[in-house]
């Protein structure tokens, strides 16, 4: 640093928040008409593009990555965030109800897709109790997303535990990029009513966003699944000095979600109540271009209240109660160091500590927290061997309480043929730890008001091993910047072993009459079975002009495997249909000279068997169209969109379950921004 001014002379009130390390710029800005002096050229300014903020170029990446950027988000017409993920090659999205979603890669999922790491600004939102993500409870609107980077395939060495079949890395916009007031409303089919407000501003060294949202919809016409959600989200970015930055985020949401089925004794139609909160703090120090050090602490809390009594069905003999509610929370502390060791070697490494907790009288028969601690050590070395060869060597060692430690390695060699073409060979292994539900489930139908067990629903007796996946890839990346085209292809083989299977052990004693039949024996979880998936994926993005965009995603798979579904005597279930053979998406958009934007997307998914509460469902086809007219005023701008969802032929498809029948939906979306 050549020139520094310390201690501003005339401070504004908000400078009191700071530690006083304001650069000369603040002083200048107060009085921009005074003559410019030399300080402007020699003073420090904050490191904006720190190493962690910079994207790794796709051709250096050790994995296939699909980036969903703002252009794709805007073109998609997605109302639900999860629908954006249909654009990712090999990804499937299921709507279990109008507010409960499951997102998986290469199928093999139930309504709690447990095979995916999902991060928002570096915070894992994976629910440790049941697995998967409570998407509707997340305090995040599509409008605040900067981009979503989806890593297709295991990648634990850089994205942590549970990066099993993929990683969804959601990065929100920096508040300074969205300054002003935004109001968005969405009205439309399926009883959709949404209002979203945010204010983003900059005060001195603090940039902040405060967002509020209310969202309701009636879900499927054929289901009891209306829902409403309200949330508050805050993000602040505070620049301590030119090197050190603090990020803090917090949010709280609550909502009612209807669930259940007519004439279903164990899942009757009923409302459930969700509550969710989170807080996150990250300190980043930029060391030099390409290097930084960060510490992060976060806490997520999830509650689902879901229990009910049925005094009528077996009246007057039995009034029974049952529940699925739970609470879960996660504390996580992580240190990460990102640095350039030599001109040809970059290293990212770090350590993390985590405590997961769950409790639920209905699901675990416990009113105190079950805790599970984890610690981890991870690293990835990016080593440019020659101009044409890049080696990525990475791994994560993680140790969960009461489980054996596991190591997830990754090796990838990127061969750059020329400036346009890169080939990639990679091999990796990753693990998925059992959820609290898988390890500790203890759920019974009770006589109302008592602890008398009528029937056991789930009892787990085994200390489960983690599921493991080995993945081998041959990838190609064509990066034709001159014509705005990126082509990503891969051939892959994945082997999932030690799968966690839901079984019935017929050697257990039968319940007492009148429930003394095999059908009333409890379920339990064991490690059983394997699934092999071979496939080919293509992702294409072409921007023929700044106003036009074409996206194409394609995945063809062949899966085979089986696992036990009962023991003593044993019987297996085939898993071949758990993965849809063909999944594809195509999306195009164009903006005309008069400003009107037209975009359309088509999604295709072959027949598939969803596990758990899901069914074997036939082909899903969905066609969406979006028309947008932007407008501008003196101090404001906005846009009006007409979104037509699922308007193609054969649009009465079944989604996730046979009784979830889609129809077409029309939405009107209006956005206004005041600068």
């Amino acid at each position: 640093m050549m020139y520094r001014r310390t201690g501003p002379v005339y401070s504004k009130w908000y400078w009191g928040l700071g530690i006083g390390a304001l650069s000369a710029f603040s002083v200048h800005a107060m009085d921009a008409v005074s003559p410019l002096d030399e300080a402007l050229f020699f003073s420090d300014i904050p490191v904006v593009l720190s190493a962690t903020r910079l994207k790794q170029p796709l051709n250096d990446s050790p994995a296939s990555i699909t980036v969903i950027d703002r252009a794709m988000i805007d073109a998609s017409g997605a109302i639900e965030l999860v629908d954006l993920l249909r654009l990712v090659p090999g990804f499937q999205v299921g709507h279990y109800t109008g507010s409960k979603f499951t997102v998986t890669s290469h199928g093999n999922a139930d309504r709690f897709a447990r095979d995916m790491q999902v991060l928002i600004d570096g915070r894992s939102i994976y629910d440790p109790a049941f697995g998967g993500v409570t998407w509707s409870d997340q305090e995040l609107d599509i409008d605040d997303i900067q981009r979503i980077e989806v890593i297709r395939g295991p990648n634990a060495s850089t994205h942590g535990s549970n990066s099993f079949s993929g990683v969804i890395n959601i990065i929100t916009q920096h508040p300074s990029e969205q300054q002003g007031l935004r109001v968005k409303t969405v009205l439309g089919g399926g009883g959709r009513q949404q209002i979203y407000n945010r204010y983003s501003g900059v005060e001195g060294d603090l940039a902040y966003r405060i967002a509020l949202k209310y969202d309701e919809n009636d879900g499927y016409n054929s289901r009891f699944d209306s829902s409403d959600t309200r949330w508050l989200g805050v993000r602040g970015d505070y620049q301590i000095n030119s090197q050190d930055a603090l990020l803090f985020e917090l949010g709280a949401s609550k909502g009612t979600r209807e669930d259940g089925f007519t004439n279903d004794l164990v899942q009757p139609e009923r409302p459930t109540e969700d509550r969710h909160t989170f807080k996150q703090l990250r300190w980043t120090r930029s060391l030099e271009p390409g290097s930084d050090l960060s510490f992060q602490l976060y806490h997520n809390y999830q509650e689902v209240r879901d229990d009910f009594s049925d005094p009528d069905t077996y009246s007057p003999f039995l009034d029974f109660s049952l529940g699925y509610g739970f609470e879960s929370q996660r504390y996580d502390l992580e240190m990460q160091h990102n640095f350039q060791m030599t001109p040809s070697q970059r290293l990212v490494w770090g350590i993390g500590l985590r405590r997961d907790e769950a409790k639920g009288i209905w699901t675990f028969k416990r009113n105190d927290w079950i805790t599970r601690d984890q610690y981890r050590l991870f690293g990835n070395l990016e080593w440019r061997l020659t101009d044409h060869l890049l080696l990525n060597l990475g791994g994560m060692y993680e140790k969960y309480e009461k489980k054996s430690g596991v190591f997830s390695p990754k090796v990838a060699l990127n061969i750059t043929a020329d400036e346009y073409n890169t080939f990639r060979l990679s091999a990796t292994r990753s693990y998925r730890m059992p959820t609290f539900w898988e390890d500790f489930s203890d759920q019974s139908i009770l006589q109302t008001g008592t602890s008398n067990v009528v029937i056991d629903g789930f009892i787990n007796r085994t200390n489960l091993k983690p599921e493991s996946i080995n993945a081998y890839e041959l990838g190609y990346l064509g990066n034709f910047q001159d014509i705005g085209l990126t082509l990503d292809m891969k051939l892959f083989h994945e082997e999932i072993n030690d799968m966690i299977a839901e079984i019935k052990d017929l050697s257990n004693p039968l319940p007492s009459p009148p429930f003394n039949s095999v059908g009333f024996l409890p379920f339990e979880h064991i490690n059983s079975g394997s699934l092999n998936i071979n496939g080919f994926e293509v992702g294409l993005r072409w921007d023929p002009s700044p106003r036009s965009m074409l996206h194409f995603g394609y995945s063809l798979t062949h899966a085979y495997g089986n696992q036990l579904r009962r023991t003593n005597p044993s019987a297996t279930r085939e898993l071949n249909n758990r993965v849809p053979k063909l999944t594809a998406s195509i999306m195009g958009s164009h903006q005309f000279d008069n400003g009107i934007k037209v975009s359309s997307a088509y999604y295709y998914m072959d027949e598939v068997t969803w596990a758990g509460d899901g069914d074997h469902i036939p082909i899903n086809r969905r066609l969406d169209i979006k028309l947008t007219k932007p407008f501008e005023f003196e101090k404001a701008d906005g846009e009006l969109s007409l979104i037509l969802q699922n308007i193609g032929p054969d649009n009465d498809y079944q989604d996730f379950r046979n009784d979830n029948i889609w129809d077409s939906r029309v939405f009107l979306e209006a956005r206004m921004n005041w600068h």
Partner: protein
Amino acid sequence: MPFQRVADKWLLKRPFIRTGANFFFRIIILFSLLGSVESPASEGTILVLSSGNAPVYKVITQKLKEQISRSCSDNTGSCHDHRLYDLNSDKSEVSLVIPAKTKLIITLGLKAAKAVKTLNTGLPTVHALLPKKTADQVITSPNQTAIYLDQPTERQYKLARLIKTDPHIGLLLGKNTALAENDFLRIAQQLSIPVSYRLVESEEQVGPLLKELLEESNILLALPDPSVFNQRTIFNILLSSYHNKVPVIGFSSAYVKAGALISAFSKPEDIAQHLAEFSTAFLHSGKDTLPAPVYPKYFSVEVNRSVARSLGISMPDEREIIQLMSNDTKQ
């Protein structure tokens, strides 16, 4: 750092001339011919006045000293004595002596420039470390000239041609740069580089205007104009540009650290070199008239390799860039 605080207040918060004069007169005990006591037998003293004791001034005075001594050892004929003064409130009781045989005054920075101007010495003065706009305001008589601190627009534009084969430069002009609008356009035309620009009247406009600009251009040129480029706007400017895959050309080393792809700027060493050459040439010539103000002859280039890699831009090494830029001039 009491001095720096005073300096801030002094420079930016008060009507300059009167305060400046008061301050300066307070520290002057003697402005006379007595100085020869301290500089015996000086043929032509060069007086260097710094605006403070920040490293930038020290580096320049030190390098300048070295350069001139070197020219003394090279040229046995005429060697010029030089003296160096720092304007520093901590030493307010110290007398400022302008030696009798002072032939040239060099000021480093705005405070020194204004102080000398107030004194009205009548001696040939060269102002260094001043941005062009400020220097042009300070210089009111033909016995003053300047070596500007900012880089000529051509130089910045040429960087753009090294980044992209089809550069389209985006400019955000503010209070301090709006008047130069025609220069920016004229030079772009000479170099046949397309330019889009927006006039920013208030800071709230930076966001929306930047958004428009990033759609039209593929390189953003950051300008030393704090009404547009400041602490509050820098995040939006660097992040939005990056997210639109538009590299930013900065004007200082700090910009490169912050996330600009590249900056061309004159380091203290570059300025010292230029000042040394200027001084020896002027004193050798024996002329009384000073040449017109010029942009810095020497400059350095810094590239943020991480940003370049992330944007998929391959840049030659810094030395080669400077070479390529001078070749560009010859064409």
